[in-house]
């Protein structure tokens, strides 16, 4: 633990110079690091090859491990569940009663919906899924929220495609390798999802906060019409996500909008589904016109 002796250069010019040179190299390293950072901000996709190589080489390990340990993220939840068992039980019973009624209503609505669709002769234009796979790893130590998916361009995955779980939206494809893809999660701070309120289709934007929640801002700034419990689903504007995928539920209001908890927790979902881009043509046009608005390439 003690620093080695004879580290003071004394009067030897040679020793002094070598210390100076080592510091210079260290500072050079820091400066090159800053330059690399600058490059990654100007061109976020510039280093994606490196990251893809990293993800591809470690993918066999990740894939095996993800098969073994299914649920890694909910150990804490399971422990805390013991402490609130009784009150939770009561609350769940009430909730169950309420959901039963809502399910019946929803079933009726679904039937009506199908009948109307048949009348309009609306057919599904896009297939439901391109591929289904597990999330094999994530950037758990970084403040970015990016996960790796065990499918890649070999299975037809392309940049920008939305990724969802049964519970709701997970994110979108950011970078693609041959057998892995990197998914920008909804909760990432750089991910903006166009959403709408489920009951009155009030449009809003959901921006990730990096901790499993999103910040919901209404498009009509100045009003704050949100309430706790509001459900937000994708609106389909921007053409990236098909409309109607559940995204988040409001947990509290803030000054200008609301904070909402993301419904699909990537730590708990088993398999995720990669969907085709809702309106690929629209996305391409938007990308050409205003690259900054719905930046489908946007990463860093």
């Amino acid at each position: 633990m003690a620093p080695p002796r004879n580290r003071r250069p004394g009067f030897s010019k040679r020793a002094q110079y070598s210390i100076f040179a080592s510091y210079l190299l260290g500072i050079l390293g820091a400066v090159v690091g800053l330059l690399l950072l600058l490059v990654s901000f100007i061109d976020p996709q510039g280093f994606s090859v490196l990251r893809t190589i990293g993800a591809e080489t470690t993918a066999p390990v990740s894939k095996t491990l993800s098969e073994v340990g299914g649920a890694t993220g909910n150990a804490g939840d399971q422990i805390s569940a013991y402490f609130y068992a009784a009150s939770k039980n009561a609350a769940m019973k009430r909730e169950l009663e309420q959901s039963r009624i809502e399910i019946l209503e929803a079933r009726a609505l679904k039937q009506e919906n199908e009948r109307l669709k048949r009348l309009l002769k609306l057919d599904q234009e896009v297939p439901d899924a391109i591929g289904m796979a597990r999330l094999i790893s994530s950037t758990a130590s970084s403040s970015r929220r990016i996960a790796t998916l065990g499918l890649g361009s070999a299975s037809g995955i392309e940049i920008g495609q939305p990724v969802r779980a049964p519970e709701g939206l997970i994110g979108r494809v950011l970078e693609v390798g041959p057998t892995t893809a990197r998914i920008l999660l909804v909760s990432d701070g750089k991910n903006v999802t166009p959403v709408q309120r489920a009951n009155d289709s009030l449009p809003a934007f959901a921006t990730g906060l990096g901790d499993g929640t999103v910040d919901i801002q209404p498009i009509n700034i100045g009003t704050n019409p949100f309430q706790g419990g509001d459900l937000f689903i994708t609106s389909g504007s921007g053409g990236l996500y098909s409309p109607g995928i559940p995204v988040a539920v409001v947990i509290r209001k803030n000054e200008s909008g609301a904070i909402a908890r993301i419904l699909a927790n990537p730590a708990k979902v088993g398999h995720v589904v990669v969907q085709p881009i809702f309106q690929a043509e629209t996305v391409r046009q938007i990308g050409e016109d205003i690259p900054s608005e719905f930046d489908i390439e946007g990463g860093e």
Partner: protein
Amino acid sequence: MVRTRRSRLDRKPSQWRIKMIPAATVVAGSMITTFSIITDYPILPPLGLLVLLAWRLIRPGFWPVWAGFPLGFVDDIFSGQPIGSAAFLWSVIFIVLESIDRKAIRRDYWQDWLIASIAIIFVLIGGMLIVDFQTNLLRLDILIPQILLSILLYPFIARVIGAIDSWRVAT
């Protein structure tokens, strides 16, 4: 060829083991994100950094000042941070630690832990601010669990690295 045989007869550990083990353990620590640990917020301690700090504090002078750059660069590939972030932050840590080493009169275990803790806080907060300075400046509190976990994990990592170190130089 002859040389390696003779050194084996002399029962000295191979140069590869002496030189490469520290870097290899740091890279292995950086690759912890490979494990299927999927979380919704940053919680996993930056193991690459912890291993790096352990080596740097156990064996001052083993690594040149510039070693933070290549090791940080490898960490960036796996961490999901923008490339260059750890390369920069780890370089800064090495420069600061080098000057501390030259000034310090005595060092003990608690000082090492304190230095490691400050370095961990610096890298985690720095990494978050690099990602997005303006919005993240107000939300640094989501790092608190990760910082606490990392600081508490450091003594354990230092023990493990100490054991690896004594195996590294053993005959």
